């Protein structure tokens, strides 16, 4: 029997800060940032939101779409680089809040921006091995950028959640991972903000891993770029996924539906998962989707999904990605500094 995504759901906080507003404070050229990054604004969490709360909201939407008894979930894995606790798994709170029961495997995952897709692979493996009936994989982040750093224009907050199991709305046809020791972006224990290797994050890091994982998966499944209706890559900015898609031979219309980065920024572990949710919101039965994440350090997980007719009955059971993107309130840099606790009192 086919295994894949049984239910999906995302959550994007309501607040936004625009690239214009950040550039106004730092005296930089907003137009060149907007053109270079292809990002207009980014999602900012409220003061009472963190990776746990946004994971619960996304998880609820995924369970609503799946329409299953939450007690049948046998594993919950949350991938994030902004778990609220250093010691005390986010998954324990999320499992309790979602009413998943106590006979459940829980662990928090960390692999920069691809921890959420690593969680999806683990759930897939456990379902395939018949160890669990359903698994819940969540990619969520309330990411931080150092004030004034290039990352500050994009580091955003959002979560994507997927119930993995049988009778899917999108069958997982195959997955492939590509991993090397490449230090393009990191954060040492106890540090507030990450560091990065500036331009080094491009060719030897993002592009090498995203392109390799995608190519190797297509080879494994004997598929070519034209076999896919939609693609989504990790979106650290708008430019990187568009360039990767060109290198691999995809057309712009294939990337459009999941291209959420322009309006919400880069929610790290939530980036490609939210992009996939946006695609599933619009996909038709028979559509094939390629998703490739990227996590610094560095690695990529690539997946091929085939949408089934189950999408038609389950899609409207929960709020859609576009609902969250449109429900927004813009804030200024002063409020942003207060909310993100950048002000030390």
């Amino acid at each position, binding site marked *: 029997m086919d295994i894949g995504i049984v239910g999906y759901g995302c959550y994007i906080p*309501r607040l936004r800060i625009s690239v214009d507003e950040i550039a106004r404070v730092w005296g930089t050229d907003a137009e060149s940032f907007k053109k270079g990054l292809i990002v207009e604004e980014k999602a900012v969490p*409220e*003061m*009472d*939101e*963190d990776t*746990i*709360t946004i994971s*619960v*909201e996304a998880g*609820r939407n995924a369970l609503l779409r799946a329409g299953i008894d939450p007690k049948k979930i046998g594993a919950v894995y949350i991938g994030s680089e902004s778990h*609220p*606790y250093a010691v005390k798994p986010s998954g324990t*709170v999320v499992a*309790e*809040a979602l*009413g998943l029961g106590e006979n459940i495997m829980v662990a928090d995952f960390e692999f920069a921006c691809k921890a959420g897709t690593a969680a999806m692979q683990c759930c897939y493996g456990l379902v395939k091995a018949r160890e669990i009936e359903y698994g819940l994989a969540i990619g969520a982040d309330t990411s931080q950028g150092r004030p004034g750093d290039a990352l500050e224009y994009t580091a955003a907050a959002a979560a994507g959640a997927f119930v993995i199991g049988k009778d899917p709305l999108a069958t997982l046809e195959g997955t492939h991972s590509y991993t090397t020791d490449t230090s393009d972006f990191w954060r040492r224990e106890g540090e507030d903000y990450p560091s990065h290797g500036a331009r080094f994050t491009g060719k030897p890091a993002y592009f090498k891993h995203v392109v390799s994982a995608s190519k190797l998966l297509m080879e494994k499944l004997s598929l070519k770029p034209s076999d896919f209706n939609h693609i989504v890559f990790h979106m650290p900015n708008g430019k990187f996924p568009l360039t990767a898609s060109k290198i691999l031979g995809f057309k712009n219309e294939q990337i459009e539906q999941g291209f959420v980065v322009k309006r919400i920024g880069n929610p790290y572990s939530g980036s490609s998962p939210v992009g996939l949710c946006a695609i599933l919101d619009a996909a038709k039965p028979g559509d094939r989707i390629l998703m490739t994440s990227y996590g610094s350090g560095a690695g990529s997980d690539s997946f091929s999904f085939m949408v089934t007719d189950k999408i038609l009955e389950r899609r409207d059971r929960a709020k859609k990605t576009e609902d969250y993107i449109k*429900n927004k*309130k813009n804030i200024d840099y002063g409020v942003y500094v*207060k909310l993100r606790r950048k002000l030390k009192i």
Partner: protein
Amino acid sequence: MPYKSSVPLFWRLKKSKYNLIGTKCNTCDKVFFPKKSLCPNCRRRGNLDDFQFSGKGKIVSFTVIRVPPEGFEKYAPYAAAIIELDEGARLSGQIVGDFSKVETGKPVRAVFRKINEDGNEGLINYGLKWELSE
């Protein structure tokens, strides 16, 4: 190191705080939140079971908190309301978002948020707040 809030106290209440699980009396069909161990209407004839509320309701009354209690300073000003759940029970809670849009009678839905934090080293307590439904 002792913390200001009680770790076991919050832990004992987490099922109702996270999930809106109350009780329903199978004799008189009344629902209660938080949980009751005895139906106040039916007394010994009562028969209570756990009851999962849907998380939807409406604002019965509210106030805007401008001088908040300790631990809630960063949220002020915010609205605190009495909410009547669709199934019948009433409870109090914090309304998230723009307090100027809060009005009596408006529909709300439960959202999962941080309630308070015990400093930088203590626990983060989570629970339900309320958001105006669109």
